[in-house]
């Protein structure tokens, strides 16, 4: 009896369509975001995350409409990220119906933005997305631009700094694992989860349902995020919860 570990399907959205990149490059179309969100809601998803990977600013308006539509039909927490750079972006997405906002690149280039956003809207709605690559034994570095640009920032130190700046949750993605289906980088997830006192979401690399359970048990994650294993109908969220429950993890069924 207690707080359940969360399963969070992630929808990468490009110009209003759900896509899933492999190592952030090769993009496959997976369908309509509203339909997919409703499907995951029915399957028992605990939250949904939408990452806007659209490059052009015109299509950013599309994302606002997607969030509005989903928020009218699906009554579970929605996190929206991608291209969030200023307080007005945060406000616009919250007004559209998002509950939490993920800040990624803007946090790296302007850490004060995280502080401003959490002061303004509350830590509970500010998620900092951390994209990390392994650069040595038990050592990871923050990368931006879909994993192409190194920043020199140590991932664990960065995570602690972001929490001090007001992040209410961390979304930790292994850029080495993303799209590989080899499982989360459990050392990275655990290192960050044990270093901070806010919830940590494990992301990047899920290929089967046991990977999700590993993220909680070995990675010490509070929530696990996956995209492609759900998008193409390989597994349902309900099956994921059965597997996790079977390994002794408390889930919402």
């Amino acid at each position, binding site marked *: 009896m*207690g707080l359940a570990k969360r399963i969070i399907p992630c929808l990468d959205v490009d110009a209003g369509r759900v896509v899933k990149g492999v190592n952030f490059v090769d993009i496959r179309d997976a369908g309509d975001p509203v339909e997919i969100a409703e499907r995951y809601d029915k399957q028992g998803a605990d939250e949904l995350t939408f990452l806007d990977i659209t490059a052009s600013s015109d299509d950013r308006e599309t994302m606002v409409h997607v969030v509005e539509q989903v928020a009218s039909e699906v*009554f*579970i927490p929605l996190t929206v990220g991608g291209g969030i750079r200023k307080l007005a972006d945060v406000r616009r997405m919250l007004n559209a119906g998002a509950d939490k906002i993920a800040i990624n690149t803007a946090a790296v280039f302007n850490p004060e933005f995280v502080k401003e956003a959490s002061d303004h809207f509350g830590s509970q709605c500010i998620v900092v997305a951390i994209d990390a690559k392994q650069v040595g034994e038990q050592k990871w570095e923050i990368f931006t631009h879909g994993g192409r640009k190194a920043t020199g920032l140590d991932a664990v130190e960065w995570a602690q700094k972001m929490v001090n700046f007001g992040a209410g949750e961390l979304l930790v993605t292994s850029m080495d694992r993303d799209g590989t289906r080899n499982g989360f980088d459990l050392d990275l997830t655990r290192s960050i989860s044990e270093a901070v006192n*806010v919830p940590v979401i494990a992301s990047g690399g899920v290929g089967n349902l046991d990977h999700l359970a590993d993220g909680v048990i070995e990675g010490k994650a509070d929530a696990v995020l996956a995209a492609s294993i759900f998008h193409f109908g390989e597994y349902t969220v309900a099956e994921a919860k059965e597997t996790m429950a079977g390994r002794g993890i408390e889930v919402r069924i």
Partner: protein
Amino acid sequence: MKTVVVIDYGMSNLRSVSKALEHVAGNNWQVQVSDQADVILHADKVVFPGQGAIGQCMHLLKESQLLDVIQQSVEEKPFLGICLGLQTLLTRSEENGGTAGFDVIAGTVRHFTKSPEYKIPHMGWNQVSQQAHPLWNGIPDNSRFYFVHSYYVDLVDVMAGTTAYGGVNFASAVAKDNVFAVQFHPEKSQDVGLKLLENFLNW
């Protein structure tokens, strides 16, 4: 047609609350979002949501001249508090160096104690152990609702539900006369949350 008004004081995610109410309202109810005293005072039912820091919340309510309006609504019509909308009803909160609340319910709002075992905020789906109340109609005992908060309401006399987290049992729902208030977010708690909102409209 009857009206339910969601109090808007410029702080929380009102769209989620109003959308969820619209979803369950049917044709007999009109859902309004308002910061106007006369609209709130004329409504049949009032929903008072809130997120963020309590000091800022009380400050904004004062600026919007809504303190008396809330006090009056609490005394005379069905009133649903959500999250900070629960915490502000207590006597006082430890948050922001000590903040006075509406004192509708005698008790204190406390911060979860930091510990390596528990993450703060308490974020996610946790169980609510119910005590009999019409707002729980059709909702199985110990159902999971969505929580996100760092401060909690100490056990009080007028509890309607309790939840365990951070090494404590806290009041996750309170009920007193025409007031029902919850720490969790019914508007984000899928079927059981929508059912609670529907029960509130039927209460």
